[in-house]
């Protein structure tokens, strides 16, 4: 099958500067052959030959789970882009950037990319980028969920307020994300799109995970090799029981292979795990970061250990 087209999800709360960032990024020669899908045409004009606008249309599935609702608008647009590219009706593109509305929950978009049959065979979620402005910070539950889902966090408006305190809070909230600064949207694309997207280390616990409206990062470290079946049974049960409280789970697991297994999930939506060839650092212990409410790392470790023991006996 042909290589999948990477999709980057650009999210961020209202007024946090995501359109400014996008407009500046698109003016960079390195960002040629990028198709852009936006929900709303904002005050910042984006001059781009492959700009598409969609009306947010969310289909909540029968079980009523909001994070697993299908964004029909996005699926339709991606399928249409694919068809038009194949027929030569639009310029070729090698990347898609989806800019969400300011209050959008990233989970349904991730779910759509991973589950809609045509979309998931032709596109893959490359990374989630979230903008947070240094003036207002994490000002609403939506912005906390967006920051928790992010692989890259862009701190904007550093010219109006010192970005240092916010960066510290963001690092505590989502220790798995790389944090960069961009004032007036000025940022080299490499800062967001460069590097091996799978090899960003999942840090071990540092004891400094602050709380944001009840949301906190918890690091679980497991010294022994993990049985993948036991882990899958445990995590599916945990997400079924506590999924509403888990905004993000990301981990590197030692399952007995030379490299770790990369686990990445946003709310209930879990990416297919990826076997990495090597560990990103010298720490080869399994470590998993949970970002959520009312979670306790000690209780998570005890529970996981019990499932792993049960799998051995």
């Amino acid at each position, binding site marked *: 099958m042909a290589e999948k087209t990477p999709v980057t999800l650009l999210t961020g709360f209202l007024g946090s500067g995501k359109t400014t960032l996008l407009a500046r990024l698109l003016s960079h020669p390195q960002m040629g052959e990028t198709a852009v899908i936006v929900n709303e045409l904002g005050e910042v004009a984006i001059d781009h030959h492959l700009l598409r606008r969609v009306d947010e249309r969310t289909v909540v*599935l029968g*079980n009523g*789970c909001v*994070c*697993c609702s299908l964004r029909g608008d996005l699926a339709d647009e991606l399928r249409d882009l694919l068809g038009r590219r194949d027929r030569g009706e639009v310029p070729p593109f090698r990347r898609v950037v989806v800019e969400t509305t300011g209050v959008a929950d990233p989970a349904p978009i991730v*779910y759509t990319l*991973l*589950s809609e049959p045509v979309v998931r065979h032709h596109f893959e979620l490359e990374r989630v980028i979230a903008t947070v402005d240094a003036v207002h910070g994490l000002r609403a539950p939506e912005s906390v969920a967006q920051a928790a889902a992010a692989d890259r966090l862009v701190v904007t408006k550093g010219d109006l307020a010192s970005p240092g305190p916010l960066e510290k809070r963001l690092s505590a909230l989502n220790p798995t994300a790389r944090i960069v600064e961009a004032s007036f949207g000025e940022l080299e694309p490499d800062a967001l799109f460069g590097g091996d997207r799978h090899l960003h280390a999942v840090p071990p616990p540092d004891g400094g995970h602050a709380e944001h409206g009840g949301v906190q990062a918890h690091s679980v470290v497991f010294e022994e090799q993990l049985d*993948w*079946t*036991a882990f*899958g*049974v*445990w*995590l*599916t*049960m*945990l*997400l*079924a*029981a*506590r*999924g509403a409280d888990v905004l993000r789970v990301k981990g590197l697991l030692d399952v007995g292979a030379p490299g770790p297994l990369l686990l990445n999930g946003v709310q*209930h*939506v*879990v*990416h*297919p*795990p990826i076997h990495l060839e090597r560990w990103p650092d010298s720490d080869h212990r399994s470590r998993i970061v949970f970002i959520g409410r009312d979670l*306790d790392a000690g*209780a*998570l470790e*005890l*529970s996981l250990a*019990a*499932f792993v*023991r*049960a*799998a051995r*006996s």
Partner: protein
Amino acid sequence: MCALCGVLLNDHWAEQDGGRRGRIFRVGLVNRVLGHYGLELGDWAGRVYVLRDRKGHAAVVDNLGVLWAEAAKLAGRPLDPLDPELIRSLG
């Protein structure tokens, strides 16, 4: 991919490795957990699972993603892996 909505997909993320032997092993481990709640899981032709309680109620589930919600319905209570009593029962 979704722990709750994996029914839409045939390749649930937690069941991608292990083949037939992995599936049998998985059912055995799940039954260690479900036993605490008076439930039992069986494999039906390697395609779906059948969940049963002791009163004869049954439900067919496609994968681990939907299993736990169905099990909670049959058990009449939430199934929480952090429950200390469950952890003790697993030994």
